[in-house]
């Protein structure tokens, strides 16, 4: 055999070669690197690892094809800016991965290019928690990132994204989870005494006195899931038992606005379960909840067998759609909602088309497997 390409190994600048076959010129190909992900809306699936890289896989909501990933450290948490153009992660990089001193890092990513824009070292006491949207949040104006800590005593690190450094640590004893206010340098947290407590800070990092609500829920008899959502100006929480709490954090003292049992009168012992148990579509003011039957003490993390569409306007369950298994939900915000579920038990991301004219029934439309061993949460673009 004679190697036509031999010149190629040594000849720089002489890259067009002719083969003996016909008159077709051989043009060596050139390796490139994509500068942007393919256009179109994305789904972000967080696959968290405790002994290696945590991944945020970025997929097309259109055909569920993979566009790439963000690769971060252990115990990765994730959030997006409102325009979904910038992503933030927190994760830890211990010296010997599973031993040695821990470096906790907030990373800022450009979503379109999937590149790291910068790193900010944060307090190593960052909560080493399973994925929860309430572990990492942004302030109303997106100038600050809020990072949940646990040692196990709880606090929140406020990171000044403009200055690129930690501003202050806010003690939040007995409270957990971060719910940013819609305005100002302020967030609330859910507390074991059944209150919501609001924390305010100045640009200089001076902390105001925390303001605790009256008791809103009972942590023993009707515990709330951490996965609280914003619905218009209010915060929505669901309890393990299927009570929906609507809370206002707009005034100084947070307070309960409304509470109703959406499982009432429905047979089968249904209750919400999973991690990201709710998703909210503001266009229709419809809440989707991941529900499992035969609920009992301890079943609150069971994957959903149905997704219930609940009207916040009339406080009724509109439709119960059967799903294959849903640990967490995500839904687009517009007029024709697409619902997404992830199931951590089998690593499947599933898409459903929601029909507003059919009482918000969710019909299976596509799925993709192998989203990871710990694919806990999903965020979706419109």
């Amino acid at each position, binding site marked *: 055999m004679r190697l036509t390409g031999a010149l190629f190994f040594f000849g720089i600048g002489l890259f067009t070669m002719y083969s003996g076959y016909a008159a077709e010129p051989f043009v060596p190909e050139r390796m490139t690197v994509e500068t942007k992900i393919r256009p179109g809306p994305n789904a972000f699936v967080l696959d968290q690892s405790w002994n290696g890289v945590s991944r945020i896989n970025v997929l097309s909501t259109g055909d569920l094809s993979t566009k790439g990933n963000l690769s971060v450290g252990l115990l990765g948490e994730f959030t997006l800016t409102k325009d979904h153009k910038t992503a933030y992660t927190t994760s830890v990089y211990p010296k010997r991965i599973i031993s040695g001193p821990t470096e906790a890092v907030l990373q800022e990513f450009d979503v379109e290019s999937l590149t790291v824009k910068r790193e900010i070292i944060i307090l190593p006491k960052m909560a080493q928690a399973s994925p929860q949207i309430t572990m990492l949040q942004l302030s109303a104006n997106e100038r600050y990132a809020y990072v949940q800590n646990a040692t196990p005593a709880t606090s929140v690190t406020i990171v000044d994204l403009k200055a690129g450094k930690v501003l202050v640590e806010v003690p939040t004893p007995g409270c957990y989870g971060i719910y940013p206010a819609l305005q100002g340098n302020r967030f609330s947290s859910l507390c074991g*005494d059944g209150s919501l407590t609001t924390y305010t800070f100045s640009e200089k990092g001076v902390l105001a006195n925390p303001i605790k609500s009256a008791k809103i829920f009972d942590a023993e008899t009707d515990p709330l899931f951490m996965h609280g959502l914003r619905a218009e100006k209010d915060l929505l929480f669901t309890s393990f038992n299927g009570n929906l709490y609507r809370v206002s954090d707009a005034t100084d003292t947070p307070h309960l606005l409304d509470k109703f049992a959406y499982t009432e009168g429905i047979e089968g012992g249904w209750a919400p379960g999973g991690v990201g148990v709710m998703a909210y579509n503001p266009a229709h003011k419809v809440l989707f909840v991941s529900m499992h039957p035969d609920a009992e003490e301890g079943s609150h993390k069971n994957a959903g067998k149905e997704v219930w569409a609940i009207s916040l306007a009339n406080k009724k369950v509109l439709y119960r759609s059967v799903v294959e298994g849903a640990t967490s939900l995500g839904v687009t915000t517009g007029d024709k909602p697409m619902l997404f579920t992830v199931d951590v038990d089998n690593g499947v991301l599933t898409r459903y088309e929601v029909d507003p004219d059919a009482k918000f029934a969710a019909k299976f439309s596509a799925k993709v497997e192998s989203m990871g061993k710990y694919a806990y949460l999903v965020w979706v673009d419109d």
Partner: protein
Amino acid sequence: MLKIIEKLLQSLDKRTEARMRRTADIAGRRSALAKIGGVLVGSALMPILPFDRSLGVAFAGDAVAETSCDYWRYCALDGTLCNTSGGTLTSCPAGSEASKVSWIGTCKNPTDNKDYLVSYNDCCGKAEVNGGTFCFTNKAERPGYLMGLHNDINWCMANENKGYHCTVAVLVGMVDA
């Protein structure tokens, strides 16, 4: 029952809050916990309590194997069993270290039909073994606002070496009905 633990945890939180204002140092936190003592501080127990496996023996007639997730002590255990990782029901595998803090379950022993407080301590500083038995039970588990009942977090968090290896189930109290 939960209320009592809740109050204890609140008390703990208040004390640690006070301390936190003096120092953000982990060693400081550790000694604060040690002064309060008790369930959340696994390692603090070790020099004090004699090793005693009598309860294990007493329940040997139990039909469910200690390596099964259905074993009664594991009613709120989210993790890999240490007794399938080179350790035992209450001991960490060689080369790992005991977590300094833990979460608590309340599980009913089918032998005497009584509720026991179970301290789920993680063993730390190594990755999980391959092929260990992973359990995921959540009886009386609560979100992190009741941190001492919460299992969606790495309880190696207060150790220098935070790698999660496996979880033991240690009986630390009994609930009198």
